């Protein structure tokens, strides 16, 4: 029996969501007060869900890992948020946004979910404006737009280079309003350790209080996981330091299926790695590709001189520069999707054309834009990004081109969810980057914010009622149930096991080793040999961890313990990612198997054999069970992605 039923409503694509809403079950106001909902994570998806559910009258308990819900990593999103408003009269529509997203995801996402996302995109912009999000405006007072990768229209709304911050502060405002009203109870500095399942339904969580170090039990009628992605499995990524995969990993180990783990996104424009002490990579917004032109020298010898620091970029004449994206993809040029731009940068650097001392960088040049628009116009568009670059690299991008290289940024994979965003565990929902639902094998720029807010403001508030409608007779769940005690014991045992090793290696040092294996063998390009090696090396490293980890045994605040617990989960997760990458014998989106490419180095999909979502069921650490959800494309024709013409 196939366990995966996506529960997609009947009817034509454009009517599915409307039909769902008209037929779903509702919970009346007096019953809403009796129902508790836990929301883990307060990024765009979590904060918007908690606020909206609180407004509706549910009792919401929200949890975040930082000292304040305003600090979730959604805050770092720079470029913008997509919507099909067609304010620019450039031919945009819900259908076009839907098609671009499906195509951008290389035909590995579910049509119905993506169409709903495109439909809701417009409501999000309306909602955020009403909240006082200061989007960029034209002189007319109307909203401004810019273009982003993978699209030929300008549909991206933005607030300087701080769009994520402004949208998150909007959601945080809504959340604060509900906290003030008492409908949402906020728990900060908490990390989820375990999911509690009672009679097959998600009924609560065990958290660790990061100040006292104590474990705590929390119960609810439903649990929403909105804890973001697992990009930090690579150690170096654009994610925040506390971004981790442990919450979704614990859900997986409790029976929620994990979908498409190998779909990880490498962002093309990040500041290159410069040393092994480095703790994270800094993204330079995709919006820079609107006006910046990417190039390397045409001549390998010139590149060598650049690497040795003997010449400067400005000394290389125009006719000796290779604007390789414009050359290879004339139709989209510098605005090809992220996976395509990243691979092209790697290809040039591997071929010996890298431009910095490590050979792992290409130029992103604003000279032409400054000549065309003037320095002031460029400054008003990208000023804060240029400043950030200069602060880190100590070079002025107005005078000398930026140097950039791809870095791990986002994970399209995540907990498997159906159309209602419910996982394979009843009553457990996943939203935002924590689920797998909308981006297929590659996410387009400015779509993460859109998805997080769509899930939180407009999808979950409907779908969760459909689940809770038959829970109204269930009274408040007691945390004295045996299942809570067992989960707490399990979490405590995991902590004790780590403290008891008393080895010689720090969590960071093992995490770096993990990151190295993942980046080299499960990174931008993958092959069978490397992936098999990675699986074996990850097994060894996991054993090494459990024999050598060293964590100070102190009361209260213990950041080393937090890190070690997360690394333990990342080590297991890394293996699932490699296993999935090995299974998927095709190239699609961010997943590039070198065995499967065209003669000119483009990804070669295999729709006959791999047109499915790979959803893994936990069995034991070494043998996850694969379930396939076949993908059907009825409204869009399956074809090779073409950004050339």
């Amino acid at each position, binding site marked *: 029996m196939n366990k995966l039923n996506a529960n997609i409503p009947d009817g034509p694509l454009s009517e599915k969501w409307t039909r769902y809403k008209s037929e779903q079950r509702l919970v009346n106001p007096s019953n809403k007060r009796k129902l508790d909902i836990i929301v883990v994570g307060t990024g765009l998806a979590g904060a*918007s869900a908690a606020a*909206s559910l609180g*407004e509706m009258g549910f009792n919401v308990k929200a949890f975040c890992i*930082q*000292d*304040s*819900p*305003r*600090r979730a*990593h959604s*805050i*770092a999103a720079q470029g913008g948020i997509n919507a099909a*408003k067609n304010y620019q009269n450039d031919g945009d529509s819900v259908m076009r946004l839907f098609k671009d997203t499906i195509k951008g995801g290389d035909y590995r996402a579910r049509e119905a979910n993506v169409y709903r996302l495109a439909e809701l995109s417009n*409501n999000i912009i309306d*909602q*955020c*404006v*009403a*909240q*006082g999000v*200061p989007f*960029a*405006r034209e*002189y*007319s*007072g*109307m*909203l401004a737009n810019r273009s982003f990768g993978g699209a030929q229209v300008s549909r991206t709304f933005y607030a*300087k280079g*701080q769009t994520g911050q*402004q949208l998150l502060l909007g959601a945080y*405002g*809504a959340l*604060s309003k509900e906290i003030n009203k008492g409908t949402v109870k906020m728990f900060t500095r908490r990390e989820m350790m375990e999911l509690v399942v009672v009679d097959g339904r998600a009924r609560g969580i065990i958290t660790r209080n990061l*100040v006292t170090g104590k474990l705590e039990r929390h119960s609810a009628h439903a649990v929403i996981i909105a804890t973001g992605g697992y990009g930090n499995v690579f150690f170096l990524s*654009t994610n*925040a*330091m*506390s971004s981790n995969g442990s919450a979704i990993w614990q859900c997986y180990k409790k029976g929620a299926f994990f979908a498409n783990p190998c779909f990880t996104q490498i962002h093309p424009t990040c500041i290159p790695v410069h*040393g092994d*002490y*480095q*703790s*994270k990579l800094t*993204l330079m917004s995709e919006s820079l590709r609107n006006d910046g032109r990417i190039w390397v020298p045409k001549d390998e010898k010139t590149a060598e001189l650049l690497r040795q620091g003997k010449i400067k970029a400005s000394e290389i004449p125009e006719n000796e520069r290779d604007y390789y994206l414009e050359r290879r993809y004339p139709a989209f040029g510098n605005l090809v999707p992220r996976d395509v731009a990243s691979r092209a940068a790697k290809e040039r650097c591997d071929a010996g054309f890298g431009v910095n001392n490590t050979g792992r960088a290409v130029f992103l040049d604003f000279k032409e834009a400054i000549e065309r628009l003037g320095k002031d116009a460029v400054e008003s568009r990208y000023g804060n990004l240029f*400043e*950030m670059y200069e*602060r*880190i690299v*100590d070079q002025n991008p107005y005078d000398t081109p930026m140097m950039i290289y791809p870095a791990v940024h986002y994970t399209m994979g995540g907990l498997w969810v159906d159309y209602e965003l419910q996982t394979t565990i009843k009553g457990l929902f996943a939203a935002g980057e924590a689920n797998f639902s909308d981006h297929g094998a590659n996410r387009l720029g400015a779509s993460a914010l859109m998805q997080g807010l769509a899930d939180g403001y*407009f999808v979950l508030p409907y779908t969760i009622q459909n689940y809770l409608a038959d829970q109204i007779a269930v009274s408040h769940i007691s945390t004295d149930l045996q299942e809570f005690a067992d989960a707490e014991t399990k979490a405590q045992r995991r902590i004790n096991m780590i403290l008891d090793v008393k080895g010689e290696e*720090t969590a*960071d*040092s093992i995490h770096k080793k993990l990151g190295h294996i993942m980046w080299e063998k499960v990174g931008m390009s993958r092959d069978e040999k490397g992936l098999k090696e990675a699986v074996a090396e990850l097994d060894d490293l996991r054993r090494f961890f459990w024999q050598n980890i*060293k964590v*100070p045994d102190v009361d*209260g*605040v213990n*950041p*080393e313990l937090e890190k070690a617990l997360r690394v333990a989960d990342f080590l297991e997760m890394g293996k699932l990612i490699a296993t999935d990458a090995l299974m998927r014998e095709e190239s699609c989106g961010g997943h590039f198997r070198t065995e499967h490419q065209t003669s000119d180095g483009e990804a070669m999909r295999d729709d006959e054999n791999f047109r499915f979502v790979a959803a893994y069921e936990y069995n034991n650490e070494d043998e996850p069970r694969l379930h396939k959800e076949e993908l059907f494309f009825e409204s869009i024709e399956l074809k090779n992605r073409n950004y050339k013409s």
Partner: protein
Amino acid sequence: MNFTLKIWRQHNADSKGGFETYKVEDIPPEASFLEMLDILNEGIVRKGGDPVAFEHDCREGICGCCGLYINGHPHGGFKGTTTCQLCMRKFKNGETIVVEPWRAKPFPVIKDLMVDRSALDKIIQAGGYVSCHTGGVPDANAVLVSKHDADLAMDAASCIGCGACVAACKNASAMLFVGAKISQLELLPQGRIETEERVKKMVAKMDELGFGNCSDTRACQAVCPKKIKVTNIARMNRNYLWAKLKGKH
């Protein structure tokens, strides 16, 4: 590069703290201040000690988690720079660097360099939002906003809530933080309707939590890593005065 660090160590809120001296060697000039602390902590952990606790997350200057008093200045006193984006090349080789937590009554120390800034959340909860609910809102272009106002609102809204302004102020005033939120929402038609109620509630909450009055020294503006201007305080004061005057009639 080599440095001598004098770091404030304090086990928890109730214990008495004090400075401890550490030496760090071979720090790459490109390393950020926090990466330098990572290197220090790696050494402490390997020797079986308790590493220095400090707050950090995004490490790209936007989440507002990090905030250290470095050589007597919040975030080290480098213009428009958060602690996480401060590179060690800005210091002199061999320099002694003093590192302390934010010092302000409403921000009690949790451990070492970590402080409790939840008071800032409480001020926002008192009214730092537009009270619209999800759904049922007009089309985004139905209400026009002049570019000038939108830009000013954006400048005010870029506050990251790090609390440097409070730490820098001799009165531990949060008026730059509060003024920025009041201004952002007052400048936009969507938020203006509630300005009077909002400003009264937020100022009352700020007072209740023990933040002081404006010291008029503009120390907050000088240290703000997002360069938020004191004109936002002026705008708040004007709104507050008007709200109070109107309230009397």
